[in-house]
């Protein structure tokens, strides 16, 4: 007889999302993940939110440079040029 792990719960699934997206789940866990997702709209929405979050982060321009920091660095560059 083959040992079967029980199906994932939603609470377990949300903790595996990063490993899933990073391709770090073992084949068996990936199958459990996929089969839970297939039957659970809530977890599908969760995964979609996570993907949308990551995509949005990729569009962020990080906070702008403080003017003093920039002024100082540009001065250093001019010094270096000489």
């Amino acid at each position, binding site marked *: 007889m083959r040992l079967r792990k029980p199906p994932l719960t939603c609470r377990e699934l949300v903790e595996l999302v*990063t490993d899933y997206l990073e391709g770090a789940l073992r084949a068996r866990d990936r199958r459990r993940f996929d089969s839970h997702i297939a039957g659970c709209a809530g977890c599908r929405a969760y995964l979609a939110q996570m993907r949308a979050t990551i995509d949005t982060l990729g569009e962020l321009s990080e906070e702008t440079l403080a003017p003093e920091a920039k002024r100082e660095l540009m001065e250093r560059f001019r010094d270096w040029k000489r």
Partner: protein
Amino acid sequence: MRRRGAASSTVAAPRAEESELLARLRAGDERAFEELVKANHPTMVKVAELFVPSRSVAEEVAQEAWVGVLQGLDGFEGRSSLKTWMFRILTNRAKTRGERERRTLPMSALDQPDLEGAGAAVAEDRFHPAADPVRGNLWTQPPRPPDEATIAAEGHERLLAAIEGLRPAQRTVITLRDVQGWDSDSVCDLLEVSAANQRVLLHRARSTVRREFERYLEEGNGG
């Protein structure tokens, strides 16, 4: 998907583009330097913060690192990408400074991410109690799928604030991976952290930022 492309193009920046940038820098093109600073300085400060006791020291270290970058520019041979090389200069300076400041390296936070704000990805009350024989550990109020609509600038501010509120190691990992688009290997190399620990930090960070994202959607924005 965008992720893969972004990850490989940012760190291992297209060689042609990079050598053009190098040529401009070496020729003393201020615009080129300004672009490089804008794109990297805030991240360099975040990374430096992992090794030194305060944001203001981290700012100093990043400034010093730029001087080191300029000094090394003519001798840079391009064996690694410009970015990898720049950030290595940064972490070397930050480590030296951290030791001088006689602080225990907060890097231990990277070695043992479990110490960094352990917690569930999603609030406890979003799931039925484990003891519930039918719905145990399933959603009470399931999340709603996000709209395709892009998030407004105000939403961007919220996510940046959420990142800012993270512990330093989580903040650095999510910034490098998701904001700057570095791949996992480059982040592990730079921070000298195992792939598994990097994933734990990324998971905690993303889970927190997603919560803020959901809150933003639930307020009726972008949905």
